[in-house]
C-alpha cells in the first residue's frame, strides 16, 4: 500500500513537472515573436541576428527540458 502512495506521488509529480514545458513554450514563442517583430521593422539587420535568436531559443528551451527531465526521473528512476 505504501509503495502505491509513493508511486502515485511520483506520477502526480511527473505530471506537474510537465507544466514547466508550457513555460518553455511560452518563452520560445516570446523569443521568436520578438525577433520576428524586430526583423520586420529592420529586415537588413535581421540576418546577422539569427544566431543570437537561436542562442536565446536554446536558453529558453533548456529550462523546459529540465522540467521534462524531472518528469522522466519521477516516472522511471524514483
Amino acid at each position, binding site marked *: 500500500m505504501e*509503495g*502505491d502512495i509513493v*508511486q502515485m506521488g511520483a506520477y502526480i509529480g511527473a505530471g506537474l513537472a510537465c507544466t514547466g514545458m508550457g513555460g518553455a513554450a511560452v518563452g520560445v514563442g516570446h523569443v521568436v515573436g520578438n525577433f520576428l517583430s524586430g526583423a520586420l521593422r529592420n529586415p537588413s539587420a535581421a540576418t546577422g541576428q539569427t544566431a543570437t535568436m537561436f542562442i536565446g531559443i536554446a536558453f529558453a528551451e533548456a529550462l523546459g527540458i529540465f522540467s521534462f527531465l524531472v518528469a*522522466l*526521473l519521477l*516516472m*522511471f*528512476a524514483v
Partner: protein
Amino acid sequence: MADKVEGAAQAAESAPGMPQLDFSTFPNQIFWLVVTLIVLYLVLSRVALPRIATVLSERHGAIQRDLDKAEEMKRSAIEAENTYNKALADARAKANDIVNEAKAEIQKDLDKAIAKADLEIAAKAAESEKAISAIKDSAVQSVEEVANITANNIVDAILPEAADTKKIKVAVATRLKG
C-alpha cells in the same frame, strides 16, 4: 495488488527505468565516443576540411580569374570600338577631302573653260565690232559718194561753170559731219 507491485519492482530492478541512468554502460559509451571523436577529428582535419578548403579557394580563384578575364575582354571591346570609331572618322574625313579636291578640280576646269569661252566671246565680239564699223564706214562712204555725185549732178545742172568737185566734196563732208 502486492504481486503487481512486486512484479513492477522486479522489472525495475532487472531493467532500470531510464537506460540513460544505467551507470554500468557509461564506460563503454564514453570509450567508444572518445574513439569515434578522435577518428572523426583525424578524418576531418587531415583529409576532408583541407580538401574542401582547396576546392573552395580554387573555385573562388577560378571565378575571380574569369571575372578578370571578362573585365579585360570588356576593356579590349571598348578599345576595338574606339579604334573602329576612329577609323570611321578618318574615312569620313578622307572622303570629305576627296570630295573637296574633286570639287576644286572641277571648279578649276570650269574656270578655265569659262575664261576660254570669255576670251573667244571677246574675240568674236571685237571681230564683229570691226566688221560693223567697217560696214558703217563703207556705208558712210557710200552716203558721201552718193551725196557727192548727187551734189555734183545738182551743181552741174544748175551752175555748170561753178562745178568744182573738190569744194563740193568738202562742203558735203562738213554737211555730213554737222
